[in-house]
């Protein structure tokens, strides 16, 4: 018997898995419930194995994936395959988080491989110390070329990276001066890549000639580093890039900026980032709690995530279904519900294209400011894309995940029949469980009433049942509730 208590537990667990992952299949939810909430959080925070991605087969038979040069869909496709297939979803979710915050695109770089490698870096370091993440980001070849730090020389500084690391990546507008930007840029002089001149011209001319892609590697050139004294955020010394990061990361503005980004991504939509200096956080106490976690843990991102997922402000019913799913969350979650994909097929590339049509072109953010999220995700065209995509995937009753959903709907009944009302309730339950308004529920049941009582006692009725299930699942995911996380 389903008690009120375990129904609430189930809803909370589903909320966790939507936010810390991409939603859950019924089997994943069953397993999580058997583990318990806190143990599930711990598992999500501590992935103990690498994803099993058959890179050898992919490289052999997907020539578009073999060098990941792009700039077509393949670089995004290799990440999308992992997003759909991973059993360590929070680690991938954090890759999406950092990709949104440290937005780097192969629109300028012309090649997808360095951005894929940047995502690999997020996967490796993304739940560690923020200081380390910023140092790794500063050494990341894609970021160096994206913000022109290969042109940041001791004798002639380029301020791009110095500006963005303060404004967009760590502190936010209003917490530093123009002098801090210049001095930070000086600290990062000499942080470049191997063969900067030749690789820059290959990038600028968009050529694979003569021998295809050359993967970029970080290189620190001490001769090109400004060894003079610098003053960054009030601290003076002969600072290098690591020192600049250390000074930035011990600043409270950095903790607050990161806390608000994490809240925005995992808890509830905040206004667009440019408005943050003028608009108070939605939940100042939650931000305070995350700032404390940041300092008490030595700037550890995992500790901040644990604070979120085990907090009352995260568990509150008021924040459930309060975030609009990003296109990537919507597409990946839907694909995961439908079951595994073939790495040699075009399914991952098609999912990347679907995301792009909804407004989020993975590895190709619109600018260095990334995507703002929230209500920016939804307009008429994007909503139609979402509905069409989810409907197309979930009506395919041949997919293993959809078959499992249908079998679980059938298993809700002790006989081989169920009323149309029970049928709708069961479909909603296996899809999350998905909570919908009374109006939505009534509409679905009115629609399903045309089927009368549904049966699967013989092959013909079972086929009809499957068709009805496909239609109702399609109808459910076209509703606004499915667009919310």
């Amino acid at each position, binding site marked *: 018997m389903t008690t009120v208590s375990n129904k609430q537990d189930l809803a909370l667990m589903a909320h966790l898995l939507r936010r810390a992952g991409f939603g859950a299949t019924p089997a994943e939810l069953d397993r999580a419930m058997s583990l318990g909430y806190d143990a599930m959080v711990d598992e999500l925070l501590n992935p103990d194995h690498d994803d099993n991605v058959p890179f050898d087969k992919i*490289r*052999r038979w997907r*020539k*578009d994936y073999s*060098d990941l040069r792009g700039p077509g869909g393949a670089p995004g496709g290799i990440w999308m395959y992992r997003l759909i297939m991973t059993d360590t979803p929070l680690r991938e979710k954090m890759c999406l988080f950092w990709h949104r915050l440290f937005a780097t695109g192969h629109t300028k770089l012309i090649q997808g491989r360095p951005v894929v490698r940047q995502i690999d870096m997020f996967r490796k370091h993304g739940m560690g110390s923020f200081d380390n993440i910023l140092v790794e980001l500063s050494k990341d070849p894609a970021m160096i070329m994206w913000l022109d730090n290969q042109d940041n020389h001791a004798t002639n500084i380029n301020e791009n990276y110095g500006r963005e690391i303060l404004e967009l990546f760590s502190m936010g507008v209003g917490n530093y001066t123009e002098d801090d930007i210049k001095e930070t840029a000086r600290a990062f002089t000499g942080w470049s890549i191997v063969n900067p*001149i030749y690789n820059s011209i290959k990038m600028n001319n968009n050529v694979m*000639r003569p*021998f*295809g892609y050359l*993967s970029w590697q970080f290189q620190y050139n001490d001769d090109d580093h400004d060894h003079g004294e610098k003053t960054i955020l009030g601290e003076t010394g002969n600072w290098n890039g690591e020192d600049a990061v250390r000074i930035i990361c011990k600043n409270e503005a950095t903790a607050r900026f990161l806390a608000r980004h994490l809240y925005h991504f995992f808890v509830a939509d905040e206004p667009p980032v440019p408005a943050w200096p003028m608009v108070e956080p939605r939940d100042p106490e939650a931000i305070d709690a995350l700032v404390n976690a940041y300092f008490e843990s030595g700037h550890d991102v995992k500790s901040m995530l644990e604070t979120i997922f085990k907090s009352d402000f995260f568990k509150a019913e008021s924040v459930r279904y309060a975030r609009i799913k990003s296109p990537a969350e919507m597409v990946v979650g839907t694909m995961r519900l439908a079951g595994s994909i073939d790495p040699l097929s075009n399914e991952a590339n098609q999912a990347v294209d679907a995301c792009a049509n909804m407004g989020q072109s993975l590895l190709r953010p619109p600018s260095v400011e990334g995507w703002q999220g929230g209500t920016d995700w939804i307009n008429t065209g994007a909503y139609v894309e979402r509905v069409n995509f989810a409907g197309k995937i979930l009506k395919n009753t041949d997919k293993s995940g959809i078959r499992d959903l249908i079998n679980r709907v059938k298993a809700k009944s002790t006989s081989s029949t169920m009323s149309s009302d029970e049928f709708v309730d069961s479909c909603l339950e296996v899809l999350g469980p998905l909570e919908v308004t009374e109006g939505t529920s009534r509409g679905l049941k009115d629609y399903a009433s045309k089927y009368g009582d549904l049966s699967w006692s013989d092959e013909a009725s079972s086929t009809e049942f499957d068709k009805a299930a496909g239609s109702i699942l399609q109808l459910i995911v076209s509703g606004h509730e499915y667009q919310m996380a």
Partner: protein
Amino acid sequence: MTTTNFELNYITNVGFSSDQGGRSFQKPGCFAIRKSDGRIFVGSRGPAAGPNVGLQMVSVDHDWFGKMSEIGRGEGQMMEPSGLAFDQEENIYVADESLHRVSVFDRDGEFLMCWGEQGTGPGQFEAPAGLLILDEKLYVVDARNHRIQIFSTSGEFLSEWGSEGSKDGEFSYPWGITSDTNGDVYIADWGNDRIQKFTFEGEHIASYGKSGSGEGQFNRPADIAVATDGKMYVADWGNQRLQVLNKDGSFITLNKGEAVEHNPWLVEYFDAVQDEKKARETFVRYFEVDTDDPHEISARLEPYFWDPCNVLLDDNDRVYVLESVRHRFQVFKIN
């Protein structure tokens, strides 16, 4: 058995990457040498809709003789050429891993016939790969069906052997195939990280190598060529290197690629694109890499093999290694 005084000396490289078609290869998947004139046919796979798809015809001296066939699914066209072989009349047989079929062209490039479709039955393929013609029979490595199929040169199915597994005579996604002067057959058993040797009728004779990156070990070997003295030259694809083994499988030497000079196609290109030529003057080919992933190392160091997928020997003691992601082949002299 030990071999002394064996050397592989780099001679040159042939190839060039361009998505514009013309004198270039794109993601080449196979190559073969026509004995009568030494002309080298390179199966260029191109981007999905590119003009490069087909068989580029070149010489070791950097001559370019044009391209045979074109992208498409019709008869005489190809999508992803993955295996090549010549018969006695120098008709050329082409496996296509995307179309799951074998096509045959005459010496002048005229289309003669094709057969095969996707499937698991006799005469059907799942990603056909290496081809070998032996005693007027065509051996087709049927990679994702983990078997070898044998046909008459007119396409009549004769027999098959092999199934998925790791025991003697079983395969895991086999790729390249060749024979020695005795008529024994060698197959690069890709997923099992070994070379298997068979009689021409498919009786297992020996296996060489095991998984690893050490000497005599393999990481997804793609292809093999066997010299008249029995030495085996293996394209060790996952380890990004060529390995040379004695007849008994003992290790002789390895090479990771040495393409440092500008072949004439490059020289002409850089003469026409002065800003790249000037920037190329600053180009450092070798540097200390900060990764131990062979695929990524080869992505950074241009002289190295990057995904060496095919290996050939000619009658002049030269060994050729085709690199699918560097869009070229490198040539070495055996001394």
